[in-house]
């Protein structure tokens, strides 16, 4: 009797066909997930090189103003630019404001580069103020990449620039509240 029952069971078992297709689908889905997460584990990076600290104060070579542009990173994600030196930057109107997107600083740099006497050595001088944050800094480095500017430098804001920048911020800050005081 027991042997017969076993035989019947065996017959019944042969009738069960499990379709493994969904399990294969699941398996490959999980594999793909793990492959992608291990490759995405590595964070992106920007290579950065600081200028060497000169041992003695070196003579600044004569820089034609059209071959460079100074970009100031201000607070609240604002960005300003000018192409003047100390004698040229006389009032806040000479310091112009722009934005971080394609229409803004990218176009400004491209236009300035086109106007330069020697476009190959065109330099962007990045001067982050104390109000700017790290994101502004990384964004401007991105813009260097986008505009394919190889020559750029990061320096401190000069005192004469700081004064004009503060006056400029004061102006735009005032405009937001009521009409300008001039």
């Amino acid at each position, binding site marked *: 009797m027991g042997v017969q029952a076993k035989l019947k069971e065996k017959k019944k078992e042969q009738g069960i066909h499990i*379709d*493994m*297709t969904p*399990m*294969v689908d699941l*398996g*490959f889905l*999980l*594999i793909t997930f*793990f*492959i992608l*997460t*291990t490759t995405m*584990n*590595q*964070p*992106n*990076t*920007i*290579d*950065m*090189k*600081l*200028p*060497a*600290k000169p041992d003695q104060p070196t003579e600044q070579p004569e820089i034609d103003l059209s071959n460079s542009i100074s970009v100031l*990173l201000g607070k609240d994600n604002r960005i300003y630019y000018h192409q003047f030196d100390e004698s040229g930057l006389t009032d806040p109107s000479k310091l112009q404001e722009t934005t971080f997107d394609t229409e803004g600083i990218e176009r400004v740099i491209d236009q300035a580069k086109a106007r330069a006497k020697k476009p190959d050595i065109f330099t962007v001088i990045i001067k*982050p*103020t*104390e*109000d*700017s*944050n*790290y*994101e*502004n*800094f*990384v*964004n401007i*480095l*991105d813009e260097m*990449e*986008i505009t394919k500017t190889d020559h750029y430098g*990061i320096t*401190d804001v000069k005192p004469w620039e700081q004064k004009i920048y503060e006056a400029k911020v004061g102006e735009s800050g005032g405009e937001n509240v009521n009409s300008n005081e001039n």
Partner: protein
Amino acid sequence: MPRVKPKRHNVIVDMTPFVDVAFLILTFFILTAQFRSSDLEDIVTPKSISSLTLEETDMMTVNITEDGRYSFSPIESSSGKKQLLEKMAKKYNISFTEGEINSFVVSPTVPVPMSQLKSFLHVPKDEQANVKTDGIPLDEDHQEVMDWIKYSLEVNPSARLSIKGDAKAQYPKFQELFEQLRNISFYKFNLITTAK
């Protein structure tokens, strides 16, 4: 010509080997997935178009949080970390017990100044994230961050530095770090960003 088209045979494919292979490959990838040691602080790095992936070998990291606190992640190497801790201990006249040294080797980040390091190493790993600290000091009077970097370089001359800063951290913190790096003639490093 109305010939008999090739008879359609119902193909029954046994999927079992498929599943076996699939799960084998899956197991392989699960085991080789290296999880990045979770940082003690939440740092949201800024987005960048740069698509260069970070090479993790011999990499030490300085982390800067949103409110400007520094912390240091040494190169992941037990012998290297032991030597690094020895050098820092000598400079700051602190002696560490065997247990503390082992705890240091296991911790991925140092978020506290040397004065609090001993007590920090006694905190169990799971609670290390909850330790409230002002970070490692860095200014003209306190050069602790630079000491960590300098001794890491002594232990491993091919050490590389990366800076993991929060997007909203104020620039002067980075300016200070860059100035100090120039002082020790360390000019090349990486900035960690996320893909745009």
